[in-house]
């Protein structure tokens, strides 16, 4: 009896850790639920329920003895598709019976603590080049390419810097878009750039919560009403921060 209970809690631990790593790194709500149910199923808990929101997961396993429930809190969210892929492959291995509970927990734990990202200069270059490319895609002129690259790179640099200094996402996005606006106005007044609006839109793109907006609508349609609404709120706050930062520059200069 005692043994069985602790086994059920072990299953819950593995499921919650897998769900947490996925959700923190940008996995979709339905995928998180699906993964947790599959893992529980593979370890012999056929009846499980999960409740996934962007800020926490509740997971319970039903059985002959009283059902067990645990909760995990999710405080910060980023997008790291590499980790999502790795959790996915771990869950595949669990389903095919290759991993014991202890091994699975250890691997997920190591994955959770690992930070294997592209180096910051690479990310900076990617953000800067993407800004320039968006300018062209939105029918800007090639003359404005370099200003957009510099403004976009500056914006990305400052959002990362401020994120380290201030833990409030809203504030760092506000400051970053303020800096983008400053760069754009500066370039246009100095005569390096021509279309202020296009430069700003292009360089703001790496900050825009496009993924969040789309995921929010998708969650709403899939019936995950709470996560849809809260992702929408997060997206709205970010969009507001960006708009306010730009507006501050445009209306005072």
């Amino acid at each position, binding site marked *: 009896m005692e043994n069985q209970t602790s086994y059920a809690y072990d299953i819950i631990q593995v499921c919650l850790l897998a769900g947490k790593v996925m959700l923190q790194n940008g996995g979709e709500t339905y995928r998180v639920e699906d993964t947790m149910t599959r893992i529980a199923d593979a370890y012999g808990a056929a009846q499980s329920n999960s409740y996934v929101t962007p800020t926490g997961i509740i997971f319970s396993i039903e059985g002959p003895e009283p059902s067990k429930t645990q909760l995990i809190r999710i405080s910060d969210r980023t*997008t790291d598709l*590499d980790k999502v892929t790795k959790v996915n492959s771990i869950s595949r291995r669990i389903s095919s019976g290759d991993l014991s509970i202890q091994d699975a927990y250890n691997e997920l734990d190591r994955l959770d603590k690992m930070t294997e990202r*592209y180096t910051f200069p690479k990310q900076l270059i990617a953000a800067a080049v993407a800004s320039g490319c968006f300018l062209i895609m939105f029918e800007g002129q090639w003359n404005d390419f370099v200003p957009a690259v510099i403004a976009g790179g500056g914006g990305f640099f400052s959002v990362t810097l401020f994120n380290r200094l201030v833990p409030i996402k809203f504030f760092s996005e506000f400051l970053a878009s303020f800096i983008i606006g400053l760069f754009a106005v500066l370039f246009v007044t100095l005569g390096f750039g021509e279309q202020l609006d296009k430069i700003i839109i292009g360089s703001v793109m790496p900050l825009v919560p496009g993924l969040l907006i789309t995921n929010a*609508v998708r969650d709403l349609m899939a019936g995950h009403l709470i996560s849809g609404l809260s992702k929408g709120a997060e997206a709205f706050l970010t*969009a507001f921060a960006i*708009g306010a930062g*730009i507006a501050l520059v445009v209306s005072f200069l």
Partner: protein
Amino acid sequence: MTFIAQILTSFVASAAFGLLFNAPKSSLIKGGFVGMCGWMIYYVMEASGIDVVIATVTASFFIAVISQVFAKMYRTPVIIFSVAGIIPLVPGGLAYDAMRNFVQNDYNSAINLAAKAFMISGSIAVGLVFSEVINQIIRHSTLTRHQKQ
């Protein structure tokens, strides 16, 4: 000339976004390809006078289909390819315009633009969900056929 520029820039932008989202190295080029296909569908449709919402639904539908094919081929989650592909379609410019009008007290045009941005992001999601539903129907029908045999 503009056509080639659009192809190149949409490819680079999508791949760069894949890098920002920390997608695995091997999937960057594929993500760029998905984004390029989606953006070219959208661009051609919009240039030939079709409504933006319809162009967005079609483009995001095809992005999701290509991503699902890739996901099956390389045994990875769909999100890796679709995220980078969708980014060019996202109405970031519209959302920015709307926000700018809001803070400049021009509420009428702000609401107009915001509604349009919401419609477009909704249509991206519709395109994605639609292709997912079709994928599930196909998978379901092949499963039941296997069970019957």
